[in-house]
Each structure stands twice: as structure tokens, then as C-alpha cells.
């Protein structure tokens, strides 16, 4: 059995973070093949259900990535909405028996390919420490 490779669902906003992930590619930055990106128009589009369902279907971690606060959001304030939701979701995850660290929020701009790669690297490392999601076997 090879080493545990966590699976991360990464919700990226269209304007900053999706483009930031593209930037990592353009610059051929290498990071662990653990993240699967789901494009949403704004991090504020994130419905808490999306995150809960991702865990239910076996994700080991979820990343929510949007434009930098306070001024970068293409839609003015969507990133603040995302921030509040993630804070609440992390509390909820704890009550469900999941480590809140499995859910991470990051602001990644269109030019921050390096940050995108670093975040995935760090998250992968953290999830390897935590091990597979306890919901996986349930």
C-alpha cells in the first residue's frame, strides 16, 4: 500500500484564485496532485452544503479560495461572505467529528501562482498528518 494521498476539493473563484491556479501552471510550479478545482464565480457563491457534501463523498480536505480582502473581490464583498461561512463551517465540522483544519480558506490573487502551489503543498502535508477523513469509512 502506497503512502496515503489525500483528496482535496478546491473551490476557486473565477477571477482571482482560478486564475492564480492557472498562473501556477504557466510557471510550471510543481505541487502535490491532491487538489481538484471546482470553479465558482465568487467565493461568496459557496453554499455550506457544497463543503459538507464534499466531505460526505470522501474528500479529506476542502479549500475555499477567493480574492484578497478587503478590496480585491470582483463583486465587492463576496469574499467577506465566504470568510464568515467558513468560520461557521469549521465550528460545524468540529461538532460532526471532523478536524476543522480540514477546511481552509485562502485569498489567492490571479498573480499568486506560487501561493496557490504553496497552499496545496501545506494542506497536503497537514492532511497526511491528520490521516484519511473519518467520514470516508463511514
Amino acid at each position, binding site marked *: 500500500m502506497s503512502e496515503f494521498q489525500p483528496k482535496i476539493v478546491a473551490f476557486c473563484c473565477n477571477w482571482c484564485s482560478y486564475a492564480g491556479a*492557472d498562473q501556477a*501552471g504557466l510557471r510550471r510550479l*510543481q*505541487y502535490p496532485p491532491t487538489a481538484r478545482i*471546482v470553479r465558482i464565480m465568487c467565493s461568496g*457563491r459557496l453554499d455550506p452544503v457544497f463543503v459538507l457534501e464534499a466531505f460526505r*463523498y470522501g474528500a479529506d480536505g476542502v479549500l475555499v479560495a477567493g480574492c484578497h480582502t478587503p478590496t480585491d473581490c470582483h463583486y*465587492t464583498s463576496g469574499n467577506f461572505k465566504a470568510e464568515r461561512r467558513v468560520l461557521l463551517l469549521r465550528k460545524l465540522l468540529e461538532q460532526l467529528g471532523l478536524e476543522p483544519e480540514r477546511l481552509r480558506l485562502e485569498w489567492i490573487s490571479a498573480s499568486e501562482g506560487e501561493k496557490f502551489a504553496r497552499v496545496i503543498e501545506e494542506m497536503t502535508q497537514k492532511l497526511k498528518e491528520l490521516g484519511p477523513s473519518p467520514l470516508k469509512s463511514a
Partner: protein
Amino acid sequence: MGVFLCKCGGNISDFVDLEAVKRAVEKIDGVVAVEVDEHWCSSPAGKRIKEVIKEKNLNRVVIAACTLNMHQPHFMEVLQEAGLNPYLLERVNAREQCSWVHKDSPKEATEKAIDLVRGGIARAKRLTELSPIVEKINKNVVVVGGGVAGIIASLELAYGGYRVFLVEKSPTIGGRMAKFSKVFPSLDCASCILTPRMAEVESHKNITLLTYSELQEVSGSAGNFKVKILKKPRYVDPALCTGCRDCTTVCPVKVPNEWNMGMDKRTAIYIPFPEAVPRVATVDGEHCLYLKHSKPGKPVCGKCVEVCKAKAINWNQKLEVLEVEAGAILLAVGSEVFDARRVPQLGYGLYKNVITSMEFERMINSDGPTGGKVVNPVTGETPKVVAFIQCVGSRDEKYNPYCCRIGCTATLKHAALLKEYVSKDIDIYVCYNDMRTVGKGFEEFYRRVRDMGVKFIRGLPSEVKQKPDGTLSFNVFDTTTETLYEVNADLVVLAIGLVPSPDIEKVAKLLKLSRGHDGFLLEAHEKLRPVETLTDGIFVAGSCLGPMDIHDATSEAMGAASKVMGFLSAGEIVKEPIVAKVNEDLCSGCRVCVSVCPFDAIKMEEKGEGKFVAKVDEVSCKGCGLCASSCPTAAITTQHFTDEQIRAQVRGILVGT
């Protein structure tokens, strides 16, 4: 459904085993065709997609290739041409977000690609037909900034038949160019070429000139912006003021004159320079005694009122907010000059006879503070030795790494003016890094100035000192002759570069535009889209994009004006149908969506018997989906990003279907 996997000439297939991807997804329910090609973006491959759509009667298409920020319009057109609604296309990013970033782990990259394609297939199943939203375009243009770029762009647009609102924050248009004496390399008189164009702006029937005004707020989107402009009170009625300047002879207040780089004083009521447009006095509210110190019934000063025959002074003017509707916005907010005080070792601010190139510019200008006489500010006499120091604040990691692009030729101009207009006997030294004379006629000009006897030293001094007799002295190592020189000069001129102004930051925030690492505005593409921004309907020109000379600023202004005209002349704009949609049966009328919408795009509509439901204005909606993620009854969703579609994609990625 058909799935098209792209090798991208090896960019994808060298690291992702596309045959394995094919095997993994071809059995998924609904998938009737999986094909692999070298380049799906090519024209023959496009034909093949169309053939497969028709042969297999496809009603969904999934293309796994590069990022959807590339080729998306092309692929949508392919679907359209095959008779399929273009919104039934799903793109999977297998290159930027997969093959290129996992070169060392092809096995895992292939697994990831399979997950992503499965997610795409699951999402594609839930896609629905959509039609783009077509909006009519408002044909007005707001031009921000009345420097040479803003002036030229406004005139181009006005002569093209478009209505222009030109917004300038100062009391007059003209910008930095209006301060120049001559322009390089021809040594034409700057005001002789600029002021007639300024007068045209004032008289052109298609231009509404709003000076002493600033951009306050912009809402709406490309084709239909609503622009709020703050008009500051100048306490003078422009319709009555004759520009006689009698008021300026009696005003007792004296403050540093920004027009002359603070080298002399102006009054609190002032006209910046004789050719100002509009030639109307402005009261500087910060310094005017009447405005600052008068109490009800106890006016202070008011001398200007007494002397004004036209009765133009009006203390009742207030801040006004004007609302303008425009289809496009053209930004030409300019830049500012580097503050030489930041390099204290060169002595600016310490020694009066160290001046900046902008101060030299005003000094040698006949309407400047010395009436065109170049003097040593310490002695008041014509200098015998003048030294120019290049690249102050430019090409220096400590300040700005970029080249200011104007410093070399501006100094050549200053040296030539000294030799030709002041005295050919003045000894001139130019200490430089590299002579960058890249414009048309610039190199020839450089030769001409060398032939005048100006001495060029390839090296920069690290420190300028003042001797007890007031002369300045510095050591400089010439790297061409490998000799250390000591230069003694009466006057040292620092060639300062251009830096981003606070206005750039302000408009960038207001309009959500990106700025580069240097702080200047970012064009949509540095080579191929130099006068557009990444936001539709917002165009840009001049030195707010980066340092440039008048020639380049003018070229960009004309380019931007042409782009604006092209954009507006289409008459309509096609908008993506990614907007919110309400299911009225589910809407409980709670108004949460109204409160979270950043664009005021949702209103409540009465359906009778006290029942209210949300109604989306598709024109204002930008499709962020904040309403959809906040709605407690899932009554509102965003088209093309419905809950169902996103959830299906997540499930597809993780469990395969």
C-alpha cells in the same frame, strides 16, 4: 454526451495518460463518444467535433484541454455551428491545473485528470440551454484626466461624434505637458502645440468639461455605466468670470505655487497660468481667509469681491454630485514625478542650488517663476557650470527598478536649451547610467547635443556636497575612461523619473482594476491589448500605465479613443447569461437576497395578497451568486452555476458519477 480529450501537442499527453482517461470515462452513463486529438483548438479538429455532434446526436460536449480562459469563445462557436446551444459545453482544465503542475507524478496526474473529467461529465449533464443577454449601449464616454492623453482622447472622440465628459481634478486641463517650455527632440514650444488643443476642448460642442472635479463612484457595467462625479466648489461663477485676474492682485494670501513646483507663491484666488482652460479663477478653500475665518455677520477679507467687476465670486457654491450615464470610461489619470528628497545624499532639499528637472523646466519657461532666466537659486546669477545627474529614483532597486523613459532625452533637451538660449559658454556635465535615446530622432538629437560641447560622464555620483562658497561638488567615476573626476558646479539638476500617483490607486479601487508590481495600472495585454483593461468598457491611456513621453501618451490616447469608438459603435453589448434567477413558487419573500446583493440588482415585486417575491434585474446582476448561497429556500440560483450543477461536479470528482 461526447468527451474530447486534448493532447495539446504533448503538453498534456506527456504527463497524463489520455488512453487511461478514455477507458475510465467511456463507460459512464450517457457518454457515447470519447475522442483524443493533438489539438482540439485547431480548425480541422473543430470540424471533427461538429461531425461527432451530428453523427452521435450529442446534446452535451465536454472538452478536457487548457484553461477555459483560453479558446472558450472558439469552442462555444463550434457548438453553435453544429446546432447545439453553446452553454451545453463543459471545459475541464487538464493543462494549467493538472499536467503542467504534476510533471513528476504521471500516475497521480492521470488519476486527477480522470476525477476532473468525471466531475465535468456530471456537471455537463445538468447544464441547460441559455441565451446571451443583449443590452443596448449608451454612447457617452467619461474621460478621466485632462493631461495631454485625456485631451487628445477627448478630442478624437468628440470629432468622431461621441459625447464626452472630461473630468479633471485641477482647476485647469493641460497636465504636466502644460508646464514644459519646449519638447524633445524638436525643441518645439510645448504650449504652442498644446494650448490650441486645450481651447478646442473648451469650445467643442460634444465635450462637457468638468474641471475641479473627481470621480466618486461608478456602478453598472460595460455599455451602461452610471458615473458619479464630485464637482468641488470654486466659489467663482465660470459664466461670469472674465479671467481678468484683478482678484489675484488684491488677495493677501500667499501660498506655495504648485504650478511652479513651489518655487514662488500664488494667491488663494488664482488662475494657474495665463492659458488655463477654463480661464476662470478658483478660490482655494483651504487657504482663503474669507472661507476660513468669516463668522455669520462678520465677514473677513473679501477683497476679491470688492475688486471683481463681473461680480463672479459666489460664496454659496457647494460640493455638487453630478450623475452621468456612459457606455465607456477612458482613464488617463497620469502619474507624478519622483520625490528627490528620498535620495538625501544628492542634496535636494538641503542645498538650494540642487534642483529637480521639473523645477529646471519651470525656470527656463518664460512664464515661470524667474521669467525664463536660469539662475543659481543661491546667488541669483546665471550659473557657469551645470551638472545633470540621471536616473534619480529610477533603475534603482532601492526606489524604482524601472527606467523612467524620459530622463535621458529630457536632460539632453535641458542641456541644449542652456547652450542655445542661455549661453554657449556654460559648462555642462551629464552624469548618466546609459544614454537611452530610443525614440524617433532622439539619437540624432543626442549627437547634436554632444557636438554642442556638453560633457558626458558615464557614472553616477553617490554624494553631492556643498562647499563653503556655495558651489556644489561631487566625485564621479567615469566607466568609459576609468577615471575619477571631481565636478564642481553652481547648479545641479536631478533627472527625476515618473511614479504612480495616488489617483491611480484611487481609480483602481473604484473600478476594481489591477495594478502591476510597480503600482501603475495594468493593461489587458502588454503587447496586443495595450489600451484596454481586463474590465469590459474601461479603457486606459498615458502615463498611468507606466512612464512614457508625450508622443507615446498621445499615440495611446488615440488608440484608446479608437477602441472606445469601436466598442460603442456596435450599439449593443452581449452579456453572459450567468445571472441570478428566481423560482417564484419557492421564494418566501424574506429579502435576504436583497440585503446581500452588492449591485442592488434585486427588487421585491408584489404578487398580490401581500405576497412579495424577489425579482432580478439582469442588466445590473453580475452573477456572483451571493444571493443563491444565502437563500434559505433555494428559490434563487445563478444560471450556469446552479446548486445542482456545482454539487454534481463535486460528486462526480469524488465518487465518479
